[in-house]
């Protein structure tokens, strides 16, 4: 069973790598150019394929942390705590990617690296909230208290996800609205590349989660052996 799981993980990792290569090709070459006057703008527009996919994974990861927290509080099973922790860590890293890639896109599009508008500020706060989640976990010694505190924190922190998502609809922000009632910012030809990137990042997130959860279970095993030796 363990060997079968290992083969599946290797297969999933290979699939992720292959999908990432295709997504890169589509985002950089395959997708049609945006109808923008400047060459810099047309190149910069290609950033959004990975920028939005990264944000999607960040939101998905925080949702999984939320679910992990809720189920942990109900069942007290360590597996759900591991799920929540792994997802929060991956989500935080991806949110950092969103902030940096968004900032690089902003320079040619808006002429500045950063503006304190609602969407960007909420994204930064959200990133810091989840850095706080990881710091909280690192600061509590007792495993069951740590898991309980983190579960509650992860549930409350999830409020930042819907707020971030609707920020561009609630306020008049500089951030472009990709999908809305007035139509999206992408043509039909760009949609395929866009959705392929979303699918790729979702598969990649699942692969990273598997690896990260495996690492945490391994750490638990080491801790158990240590405890046995001390007893």
């Amino acid at each position, binding site marked *: 069973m363990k060997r079968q799981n290992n083969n599946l993980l290797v297969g999933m990792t290979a699939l992720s790598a292959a999908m990432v290569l295709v997504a890169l090709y589509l985002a950089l070459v395959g997708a049609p150019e945006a109808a923008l006057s400047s060459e810099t703008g047309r*190149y*910069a527009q290609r950033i959004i394929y990975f920028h939005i996919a990264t944000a999607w994974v960040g939101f998905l990861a925080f949702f999984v942390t939320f679910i992990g927290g809720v189920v942990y509080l109900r069942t007290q099973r360590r597996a759900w705590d591991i799920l929540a922790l792994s997802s929060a860590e991956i989500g935080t890293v991806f949110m950092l990617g969103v902030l940096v890639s968004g900032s690089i896109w902003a320079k040619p599009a808006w002429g500045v690296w950063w503006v304190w508008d609602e969407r960007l500020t909420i994204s930064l706060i959200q990133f810091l909230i989840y850095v706080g989640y990881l710091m909280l976990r690192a600061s509590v010694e007792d495993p069951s208290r740590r898991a309980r505190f983190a579960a509650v924190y992860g549930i409350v922190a999830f409020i930042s996800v819907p707020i971030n998502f609707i920020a561009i609809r609630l306020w008049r922000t500089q951030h472009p609205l990709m999908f809305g009632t007035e139509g999206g910012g992408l043509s039909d030809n760009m949609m395929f590349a866009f959705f392929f990137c979303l699918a790729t990042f979702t598969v990649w997130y699942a692969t990273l989660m598997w690896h990260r959860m495996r690492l945490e279970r391994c750490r638990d095993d080491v801790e158990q052996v240590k405890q046995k030796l001390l007893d």
Partner: protein
Amino acid sequence: MWYMVAAYAVLWAISFGLVFSMILRQRRLDAELQALRLLVEDEPRAGSRQ
């Protein structure tokens, strides 16, 4: 073009940073596990010598 290359480079650097940190932690755990294994194997020998 520079901005596009920079954005993709940063995204990949961050992603590989995450993967690399996981590999590093796995190696540290493997080393710790190996040390514990040696400790467990040595314990009965130390006990029989007494």
